Each structure stands twice: as structure tokens, then as C-alpha cells.
């Protein structure tokens, strides 16, 4: 039990550092066990150093930086232990254009093992999708869904 946990922990820890540096185009981050002898109860800490900056507490991170660091951890878990699919609901809401670009690039790599459903208002995210569904509220106040091509996605559906 503890052995499985430690094996998984090491693998995810390695992937997390890799994912972080790819998403932030630099910097470094790592996971740490509070108690090596009691890894599960001791808990897992996160340390992050953004490109060019000193290592500081997670509390100081910006909204977009927090989103991206959390995405790095989720992606690391998916890489080590893929699920058949993963639904991401507006995880890109606070990301700027260049961060969305790196997020999408990394997601495409992971999509060979896991199907992704991305709920988004972001044009760049939509352009990474193979299939697009547009959901609107009909006059009868019930949801209706249509299949869209990328060139059909306009301001009614996206920001």
C-alpha cells in the first residue's frame, strides 16, 4: 500500500516538475513529502519558482499562475495514471494568451492517452479541438446543442 503510494508519488513528482517547466516556459517546481515515514498522512507540499523569480510561497502567486500550477499537477497525475477521459470546465478562464498556448500544446500530447472535454469561452482553446459543440438556451428555456465547425464559432459562442 505504502509502496504503491511511494512509487506513484515519485513518478508524479517527476512529471510535475517537467509539466511545470513546460507550462511556464521556464522556472521549476517540485513536490515534497512532509514525512517520508508516513507519506500519506504527512501529506504532500508544493514548491514553485517562477521563471526569473525567487522561490516564494504559493500564496503570492497570481490568478493565472495558480491555475497553471494546478494544471501542471493534474496533467502529471493524468500522465502517470491516465483516465479514459477528463472534463476541464473553464480551467483556462484566468490564463493569458501565451499561457493558453502552452496549456493547449501540453494537452494535445496528453490526449493520445486520454480523451478531453474542454468547456471554454476562449478562442485559442476551441481551435485545439477536433469536435466542437455549441450549447445555447432555447426560447423554451431548455438547452439545445449543435455541432459546429471552427469557422462557425462566432461571438455568440465565444469571447
Amino acid at each position, binding site marked *: 500500500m505504502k509502496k*504503491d503510494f511511494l512509487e506513484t508519488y515519485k513518478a508524479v513528482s517527476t512529471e510535475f516538475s517537467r509539466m511545470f517547466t513546460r507550462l511556464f516556459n521556464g522556472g521549476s517546481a517540485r513536490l515534497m513529502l512532509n514525512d517520508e515515514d508516513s507519506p500519506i498522512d504527512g501529506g504532500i507540499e508544493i514548491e514553485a519558482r517562477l521563471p526569473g523569480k525567487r522561490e516564494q510561497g504559493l500564496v503570492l502567486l497570481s490568478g493565472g499562475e495558480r491555475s497553471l500550477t494546478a494544471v501542471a499537477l493534474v496533467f502529471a*497525475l493524468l500522465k502517470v495514471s491516465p483516465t479514459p477521459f477528463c472534463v476541464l470546465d473553464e480551467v483556462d478562464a484566468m490564463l493569458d494568451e501565451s499561457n493558453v498556448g502552452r496549456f493547449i500544446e501540453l494537452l494535445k500530447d496528453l490526449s493520445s492517452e486520454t480523451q478531453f472535454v474542454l468547456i471554454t469561452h476562449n478562442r485559442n482553446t476551441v481551435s485545439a479541438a477536433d*469536435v*466542437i459543440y455549441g450549447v445555447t438556451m432555447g426560447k423554451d428555456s431548455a438547452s439545445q446543442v449543435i455541432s459546429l465547425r471552427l469557422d462557425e464559432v462566432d461571438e455568440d459562442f465565444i469571447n
Partner: protein
Amino acid sequence: TKFAGLDLQGYKTFAKETNLVFPAQITAIVGPNGSGKSNVADAIRWVLGEQSYSLLRAKKTEDMIYSGSDSRARAGMAAVSIKFNNVSKWLPIDYSEVVLTRRAYRDGKNEYLINNQRVRLKDFSELLGRTGLSDRTYTIIGQGLVDTALSIRPDERSKLFEEAA
């Protein structure tokens, strides 16, 4: 692709029967505020057996069922079916397509079906366990919750790793 499709009827804002197919590796869902995008995510969470109403942005079973509007009567039942492509037999069941269905009625009753056959929740959960989708916190990242992994306590974070192990 393992995740083949999702059917919704009477679930939250999906009053009308809606069939979504997922033939691709990356599917995007777009649309205005309040149109039903997160409700699709809730539907997936719900059919995968979620029992915590707070994660479904609800308080009780009835909140899962289309409540009606000025121009449309309310529904008596909510039904969500998730379809898996099982040609590779990754699921230990002798069908090339596996459909898991959950239904809820206004009296609070829930029903569970595998390939349209009523089953006990126990058997439904058992098969769900084989999909690798139940009890995996990181399968569905809800709106506004992307940085949960950062804000939870270190020991709660260990749970994520236990799921992956």
C-alpha cells in the same frame, strides 16, 4: 476512443433528449452563460455515481430534474446515459458497447441500468470501478475549482495520489 457518447433527457436544463457523441480526442463545448455547458459536466459526474449534491451544485435529487419554465412543463424524470466503446474489452463485460444509465424521479428514487437492464447500485458501482472513472477526483475539474489542488491541505492532496496509485 473509449468514451463514445452521452445521452441526456430531463437532466437540469436538458429538457429535450440530447445525444452527444465523442469520436475525437479533444472536444470543446462553447456557449453563452447559463446555456448548459457545466450542466453537461454535472451530468457526467452524476451518471458516474456522484452522491454529494454540493459537487452537483444542488441540494437534493429533485434538482437534477428539469424544473420547467414559462413555456415548457417540468419533467418527471432525469436520465443520463454514458456510452463506452468496449471493442477492446477493457471493461470485463461481454458487450462491444457498454451503456451505464442513471435515472432519478421526483420522489427521490434513483435507478441504475447497465445496457438497459436494471441493476443494483452495488453492481453499477462495481463496473464503474473498473472504468477507472469512479473516485478519481481529477477526472472532472469543475468550474472555479481549477486551483483546488493548491488550496487543499497536504494530507488531502495525498488522497489524489492514492487514487492514481
